[in-house]
Every structure is written in C-alpha cells, then in structure tokens.
C-alpha cells in the first residue's frame, strides 16, 4: 500500500520551569493510505502530542526538536516539520488534507453559532464555494454522518444536540473537505457505549466512502481491535511495540503490551481468574533515566534495562518490539 504519513525519530519537548518534558521521544511509524492506525497507551504517554505534532499545533513552551514528518501528497513529499506552523501551506493542509476530531464533543463546537454555520465555515475556509453551495454541502455532510432531518438540524445550536449528535457533527465538519488523513483523538471516550459503537461504525463506513486514512488514538483496546489495521503501543513518549492488529492482539511480545492485554476483563473467563494489573505507576516523565522507561514496572527486567534504551527490533515481518528480551 502507498504511504501517506511517515514519522521518523520525532522528538517533541516541552520546556517547563520544572525541566524538559520529553513528551514524544524518538517516535517512528507509518500511516498507509486508506488504513487505520491505532495508537494505544495510557494517559500522558505522548499519543495526543504526537497527533498535535503532525498537525503542527504544538503551542509554546512545547516544540518539535528533531525528526521528520513526511506527508506524501500526490507524488510530492512534504516534510511538515520544516513548514512554518502558521504559514499558508500548513494552513491549507490543516483541515483540508489532515483533519482532526477531539475527545470532548461538549466543548468542540462553539455555543454561539449553529452547527450549520460551523460546518460551512470549515468548508469555505478551504473550498471556493458560495454561501448557498456551502450550505448544501453542509446538509449533505450531515446526511452522510447519519443525522436525521439535516435541513432542520443545520439551524440548531450545539446545546440542542446530544453528545453523540455533536460528535457526528464534529465528524461531518472534519471530513467536509475530504481529508486524506483524519486524526481522531479519543473520539468516543466521552460517549456512552451504544453511541460509541454507532460512531465507530460510522467512521469505518466513512473511511471507505471518502478514502480517508485514520489515525485513531485511544486507551481502549477493544475499540482498537474493532477499528485498526495497524497498531502502535506507546509508553512514556516512545513506541514500545508496533505491528498489525492481529500480531499485537494474538502475539503481544513487549512486557507492557502483555500487561495491557492481561488487564482486559473477559466475559469468557471463570470468575476465579483475577485480572492481572501492571504493578507500579508511570514514572515521572521528568525523571526518566538512561534506561528503558518500563524498567521499574517490568516483570522481566534485566540488568541492561536500567542502562540502555532498547530499540525496536523485528519479531516477524511488520511486527516490532522495543525490549531487550527480543534484542539479539
């Protein structure tokens, strides 16, 4: 498959008073065209910062210090890290080529404008359309995301819509310019489970219809299993394991991924079997030493783990793990 986004050795740091926070510390991954990449990890592991780095929306005191984000656009390759974040090229990519939806559908829509106004705004930012055409297009998008009677809904304010409806409206806004990549940052976390399933199915349907790749950020492994083609598992700003969804779920090799799998409750298990949580807590990101970030919580730790950072090593074709257990 054709590559869409290649992230190489991305390092995004935040220069705070307490010290340098290495939120994303040398991350590599590839997003293929029309595929879904799932990004898993717990809070603070750098998932959202990675997404915002691709969008070039990192605000001071944060900045991208190293690495490349290669965007393959109609035969051309653009390194997004070299563009001016506020410049016209980046602005024409944002929203148009790469769109994003956020976790909080409650605050992601401006309360003082109708949803129609807001969808029309993002359409007219990137397409040369008059107001009436943009309005027709907005109705069409609302229909595409499964909002009933879109001609009426278009004139309603965000507070008149339920959470699920708002998230649909957000999705309509994001895909209105047919982006080649849709970054979804925990889009279903704030929704209840039945609505989650509807929104996920909707996104899967739209991916085929609009030929959009999706970067799906979540901490919910069940959602990943349902949505993703490829998966990267992040821990403390690094990718610890990457592979296809099948490889990750059937053969998790990194101790952290195995720990995550063990802490999912299963309906099939007998009730005597207890969940195995991962011991300890995520270390303070300011205190990360020279070794593997997972060393303090790892059941399989060795002497080398304290001293050197493991690099991603191939387990099988397309399946990589960053652990000294697998280093040869």
């Amino acid at each position: 498959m054709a590559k869409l986004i290649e992230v190489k050795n991305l390092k995004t740091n935040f220069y705070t008073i307490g010290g340098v926070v290495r939120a994303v510390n040398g991350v590599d991954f590839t997003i293929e065209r029309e595929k879904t990449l799932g990004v898993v990890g717990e809070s603070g592991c750098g998932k959202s910062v990675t997404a915002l780095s691709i969008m070039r929306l990192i605000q001071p005191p944060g900045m991208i210090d190293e690495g490349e984000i290669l965007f393959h656009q109609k035969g051309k390759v653009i390194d997004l890290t070299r563009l001016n974040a506020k410049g016209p090229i980046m602005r024409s990519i944002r929203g148009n080529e790469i769109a994003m939806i956020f976790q909080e559908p409650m605050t992601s829509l401006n309360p003082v404008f109708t949803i129609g106004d807001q969808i029309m705004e993002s359409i007219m930012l990137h397409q040369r359309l008059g107001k009436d055409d943009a309005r027709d297009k907005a109705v069409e998008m609302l229909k595409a995301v499964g909002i009933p009677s879109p001609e009426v809904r278009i004139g309603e304010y965000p507070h008149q819509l339920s959470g699920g409806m708002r998230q649909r409206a957000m999705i309509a806004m994001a895909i209105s310019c047919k982006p080649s990549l849709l970054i979804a940052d925990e889009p279903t976390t704030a929704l209840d489970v039945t609505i989650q399933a509807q929104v996920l199915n909707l996104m899967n349907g739209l991916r085929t219809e609009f030929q959009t790749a999706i970067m799906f950020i979540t901490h919910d492994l069940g959602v990943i299993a349902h949505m993703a083609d490829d998966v990267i598992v992040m821990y403390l700003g690094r990718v610890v394991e990457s592979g296809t969804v099948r490889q990750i779920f059937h053969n998790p090799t990194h101790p952290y991924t195995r720990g995550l799998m063990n802490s999912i409750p299963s309906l099939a298990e007998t009730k005597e079997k207890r969940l195995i949580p991962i011991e300890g807590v995520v270390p303070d990101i300011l205190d990360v030493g020279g070794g593997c970030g997972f060393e303090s919580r790892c059941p399989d730790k060795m002497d080398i783990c304290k001293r050197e950072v493991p690099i991603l090593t191939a387990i099988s074709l397309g399946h990589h793990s960053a652990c000294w257990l697998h280093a040869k």
Partner: protein
Amino acid sequence: MTRKKRSALAVFRESKIAIAGSILIVVVVSIAILAPWVSPYDPREQKVVKRLQGPQADYLLGTDHYGRDILTRIIWGSRTSLTVGLLAVTFAGLLGTCLGIIAGYKGGWIENFIMRAADVFLSLPSLLTGLIVIVALGSGISNVVIAISVALTPRFIRLAHGPTLSLKEIGYVEATRASGGQEIRIMLRHILPNIIGPIAVMATLWVATAIRIEASLSFLGLGTQPPNSSWGLMLKSGVDNIMISPYLAVFPGLAIMFAVMAFNMVGDGLRDALDPKLQG
C-alpha cells in the same frame, strides 16, 4: 444567520424590563436632542429673586442658587452627560476588548506588556487617570471623552482578558485551529462572541461610571465649564447648597439614576438575548 438574529431579537422583545429600559433611553435621548424646544426656560437665564425655590407650578423642579430653572438645566445637561457617557464607554469598550483578547490569545511578551500597562492604570483611581489626561490635553468636551476612555479602557482589558485565556484552550478554538483557521478569525468569530455578553452588561454599568467621572472633573473645573450644564456639575454644586435646598442635588441625582438604570435594564436584556441557550 437570519434565524439567529430574529430569535435574539425575539428574546429581547419578550423581556418587559429590557423594553422598559429601551423606552426610557429613547425618551431621554429624544429629550436631549429636542432640548431647545422642550425646555421651559433658557438654561442660562438667572432670576435672583427666584433663587433656591422649591418645586412649584412655574418651576416644576425648583431653581438653583442663581435662580435658574433646574428642569431646564437637567434637560440641557443630558446632552453633555449622555454624549460623554456613551462615547467614552464605546471608545474604551472597543479598544479595551480588542487589547484584552489580543493579550489573552497571544500570550508571551505581548500579554505581559498589555496587562502590566493595564495594571498600572488600574492601580490609579479612574478619576486620577482622567485628571492626568485632562491636564496633559487641556479641558474641553472632546478631551473629557478621551480622558474618560483612557480611564475605563484598562477595565475592559481585564474583563476581556480573563475569559479569553480559558476560551483559547477550549475545544472549538482548538478545532478551528485544526481546520486551518487564521488567528484573527479565531479571535473575532470564536472568542469575541463568547465574551461579548458580560462585556455588554458591564459597559452599560460603566456608562454610569463615565457620567460620574465627568461630574467629578466638572466639579474640579476641568470638565464641563459653567455656565454650561451637565448632570454631574449640577449635582456637585447642589451638594454645596444641600442644607438650604435639597432639590438642587436630588433632581440631577435622580436623572443620573434613571439614565443608569435604563442602560442597566437594556444591558441585562442584551445579555439574555445574546445567550443562545435561551433561544428556542
């Protein structure tokens, strides 16, 4: 957009208080415009034998210590007071809101510069700030407007700055950034409409403050110059003679109170009308 405008107007219309306030403002403004025709006497005409009279058939609100008709002087004074109050608050509101939003949204040294400058001005009483500007520019009605604008601007800066700080982190601002919107667009379309409610309400309150500052400046001899009249000037000179004739201070005071109340009522109605949650 048409739908929104209509319903905002509808909410405003439903509020009896807002309508009453609007009517009061229309009446006061019409009287100010029509002053030469509606006032019973010449505002400068002095009748020594009739000085310090109480309300009576000939002089509905009595006369002052030069024997001038108080009603007439209140009508003529409304011209000065309303002009100064409205213009000063409009200028201060426009400038202060813009600076406050820019400071909050941009952050960094721009924010530090604007906010610390505002702090310096806020540490002085508004009257003193006005006084300094008047001393620098000289007296006269347009300088009074400038002086009061300068005195009120820092308040609008503070008022706009706070909510901008929280709004710039909120989802829809981030979402607009993520869809490629320019900064100016975010500030005007997504931040301004969400903070305009409290600013509009405070602006109506600060019309009263502006009228009061004008009064104080006039009292110090730097604002409205006698024999012209303004409500503030009348109130201040009325206070001097309050033991002899309380009407001198009471009636201009009531005029100020009614005008301020009218603006506040409209301000409240405006706030409700601008809140989309109250629109069907």
